[in-house]
Every structure is written in structure tokens, then in C-alpha cells.
């Protein structure tokens, strides 16, 4: 079981790490999609299959499409998708910040005595999740729905609305 986790961790960290260093934006994004699939695999490994499929549907199906669409829409210049490298100072500071956070979190995780219940995977059937969503968490569900609707409308207004060129939306 831990071998599976190690494989998933390797997939997630390797793809995210390489995506960090690639200059080609499209390749970066596609590697990040691989990371998302890895995270979905992690959910699946943890027994949360509903979340895993939601992750794939939302990230693999929708977010990745929107991101790639944005990349193509803002394509600039002949090479189009190659990003100009950031100044080295910022890269160093980014690595320092990332490393510091990673060290702090890892230390905290390692030092905290966590006694997990190492039982079999808890069962979370879809019906159970649905009942919880509509009873206990109905207010949060409504709020999430409202946020999504407003975000959708806002996205449409932002992307299609005004700007220097008065043209029809894409």
C-alpha cells in the first residue's frame, strides 16, 4: 500500500517539479494536468473515489481546457508560448521561500505525534455524501453554487466585456 503511495507521490512531485522549470507554457500546463491526475490517484488510493472523479472532471476536463484556451488566446509573438525567464534573484527567492515552507511543514509533520487509525478505508458511498450535502451542508452547497454562478457570470463579463477593441466575444 505504501509502495502505491510512493509511486503516486513520485508522479505528483516529479510532474509538478518539472512543470516549475519548463519554459514552454503549454508543456508546463500539460504537466500540471498530469499532477492533477496524480492527485486524483491519491484520492482514489485514500478511498475517496467520488472526490477523485470530481477532481478529474473539474481539473482534467474543465480547468485544463480553460487554461489552455487562455494560453492560446494570449499567444504573443512567433514562438507564442515560450515564457521569458524571470530574473535570477526572483528565482532564488522563490526557491528559498518554497524550501523554507517545505522545511517548516515537513518538520512540523515529522515532529507532531500523529496516531492514525490504521483501519481499512472508510466507506463513503455517493448516497451518503449526497445526503450529507443536502442536509447538514445544504447552506454550504447553496453558497458554493452561488459562488460558481457569480464566478461564471463574472468570467464571461471580464473576458467578453469591453476593452480597447469592441468586438464580439470569442
Amino acid at each position: 500500500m505504501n509502495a502505491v503511495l510512493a509511486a503516486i507521490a513520485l508522479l505528483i512531485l516529479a510532474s509538478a517539479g518539472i512543470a516549475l522549470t519548463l519554459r514552454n507554457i503549454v508543456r508546463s500546463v500539460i504537466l500540471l494536468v498530469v499532477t492533477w491526475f496524480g492527485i486524483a490517484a491519491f484520492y482514489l488510493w485514500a478511498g475517496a473515489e467520488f472526490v477523485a472523479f470530481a477532481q478529474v472532471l473539474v481539473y482534467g476536463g474543465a480547468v485544463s481546457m480553460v487554461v489552455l484556451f487562455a494560453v492560446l488566446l494570449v499567444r504573443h509573438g512567433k514562438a507564442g508560448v515560450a515564457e521569458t525567464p524571470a530574473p535570477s534573484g526572483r528565482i532564488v527567492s522563490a526557491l528559498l521561500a518554497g524550501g523554507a515552507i517545505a522545511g517548516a511543514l515537513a518538520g512540523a509533520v515529522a515532529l507532531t505525534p500523529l496516531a492514525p487509525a490504521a483501519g481499512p478505508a472508510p466507506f463513503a458511498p455517493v448516497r451518503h455524501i449526497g445526503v450529507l450535502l443536502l442536509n447538514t451542508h445544504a447552506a454550504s452547497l447553496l453558497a458554493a453554487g452561488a459562488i460558481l454562478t457569480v464566478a461564471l457570470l463574472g468570467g464571461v463579463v471580464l473576458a467578453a466585456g469591453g476593452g480597447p477593441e469592441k468586438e464580439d466575444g470569442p
Partner: protein
Amino acid sequence: MPHAEPWLERAPLLLRDAVNALLPAPARWWVDSFLDIAVLLGVFGLLFAFLTLAERKVLGRIQNRPGPNRAGWGGVLQPFADGIKMLTKEDIVPRLADPILHFAAPVALVAFSLMSFAVIPYGRHLLALDMDSGVLYFFAAGASSELAVFMAGWSGRNKYSLLAAMRALAQLISYELPLLLSFVPVVMISGSLSPSAIVTAQGGWHLGFIPRWNVLTPWGFAGFAIFMVASLAESNRSPFDLPEAESELIAGHLTEYSGFKYALFFMAEYFGMCALGGMAVTLFLGGWQAPCAFLGFIPSYAWFGAKLLALLLGFIWIRATLPRLRIDQLTRFAWKFLVPLALVNLVTVGFWHLSASWSRGFDPLRWAIAIALVVIPFVAMGRRLSAGLGPRTYRFAAQ
């Protein structure tokens, strides 16, 4: 009739048990999984091969020509001839192409479309993976396939491919929503995301001869229609084959592919068609259920196969018949017609569910209201969609 199952029905189970008896207990899970995969690959691989032939033959019949008839008797060996040809062709990768993505795209496409086959119940005892949220899994696997189309279009460094990639993205974003919305009514009525439970919920007959399939209800019919239209778009079939519109973009995202990679794309297209057809059968057409009680002696997987083949023939027929839409018309059709219709369908199914307890006398009224809820928006929005279009009358010059 679980007590009197014919042996044909149980044949797959018997076969599996026979194999299992030969094996030590720890190996059984692995061998079973392997067998599942091998059988799925074998059956759908063959179906793919002969579907290409069937498509060409049916198109030929519709177009007054014989179709392929040289290889083998009546052309039955044509798929294998095609396969050998594809395998022996040179694999060309353009110098400016992104080699990794160029290679990964067809592989990812075939892999994703194959993944969908795991959760479709092919028969009463034929289901590779009985998953609690199987329908969600199916659409999660399907949603990733357009990513591969994008990779194919972008990596070729060809302007036609790039346009095709843009079209593929726009098409996916537009048609994912009606596809997902169209099956929500089924989930609402059967109360489950598990395909096998959905099929079981469609068992039995009204009055002894009308099957309780979802498609035979107002909301089910509307959902089925939306599902089929959206799945035509999802599998890039005519009239929604914009990413590879051959009269505009040469071959779209396939322009820079040759040899076996090209064949892989076709494989993925047919696999996707089979998977979506299979899911449509499962969700709306009663899955493996027989249409009449007295036909129950025919094994369930044969019914599933017959329904799937009928849908696939429908796909081919549509391809032979309809011209292609334009990209703006395609997205407008999705957003201004299919999505609102699917949302209205949710209301319809809500009404249907709440009015389930109405007594006998009100049953026709229930049907009438449900049909009106489906038909009126359909007609109204259809009118708006085709406003300004219509046959014209022409005048003639004065002599």
C-alpha cells in the same frame, strides 16, 4: 428470473470459474482483472475493425456505391488490410513539432477512451468494475480525451492543426455541460450513480409489454436526444466533426500524423463512439434488459450488443446525411439550445418524481404536463435558433 437463467446467460461466469479453478487463490484477482481487460480489448478491438468496414459499407450503400469489396469475400478482410497498411507506413514527425506531445497525444487518447469501457454493464453478469460512482468515472475518463485532441493539434506546429485545437477546446467546453446535464435526470430517478443499479432500475414492464426504459418517458426521451447530440459532438462525429473538418482544415489535428499514430486516432474515435453509445444504452435504453418479457431467453449481452449496434448505425447514418455546422453555430447550438433544454429537463424530471404518487386517474395529466414541459421549450427555443432561416421563393425576370 434468476432461478431459471439459460446457460448462455451464465456462460461468461462459467468460463471465469473454470479459469479460476485452475489457479491458486492469490493469483485469481490478477488473472480476473487481466481477463477482463483482455476480453474488453479483444471484443472492442474487433468491433472497431469491423465498424470501420461497416461504416464504409453503409456509407457506400447510402451513396450509391459498393464500398470496399476487394479484400476477402465482400471486403471482410479490409480492416486487416488497412491495419497492415497503417503499420507499414512511414511515421513522419515534422521537424518543428513538439516530439513528446506529438507522440503522447494518440496514446493518451486511446488510453482515455479505453478507460471508459470498465464501468459499462454489458450483461447481467458482465461488468468489469462495479463502481459506486461509475457514471462519474465514465465522464471523468471521457472529459480528458479532448485534452489529447488539443495536444495533437498543438504539437504538430501546423496552422490547420492549431485552428483545430482551438475548435476542439471550444467544442469540449460547450458540449461537456449538456452531456453531463442530460444524464442527471436518470441519476435523480434511479437514485444512484452506479451503472448496474441504473440498469436494474429500468427492469420490468408496464402492462406487461412496454419496457420501463428511461427513453420511454418524456424526460428520458429529451435526455436521450440531448445525450446523443452531445455525444456526437464529444466524439467529433459529423455534423460536429469540426476539429478534423476535411473540407476546411485538411484533417485538422490529424494533419501532421501518419502511419500507426493516425490509425490510433481512428481507433480512439471509434472506441469513444462505442463507449458513449454503450453509456447511452445503459442510461436510457434499459442496458441489457430485453424489450419484451417473452424475449428474455436471449442472453442479456446480446440485447446490449444489438442496442449498441443500432446506435452505432445511427451515428453512421447521421454522418452520411448531414452537412457540418460552423464553429459559432456549434457553440450557439450548445449554449442557447441544448443547455437550457437540459436544465428544463431537470425541472421536468423533478415534477415527474414528485408526481409519482398521483393516482391512476391523473396519470394522463401527469404525462401531458411532462410532455408539455419538454416540448414547449424545445419548439420555442428551436424557433429562436433558426430565426431568419427558411426556404425562399424566387422571382423571375420579366420577359
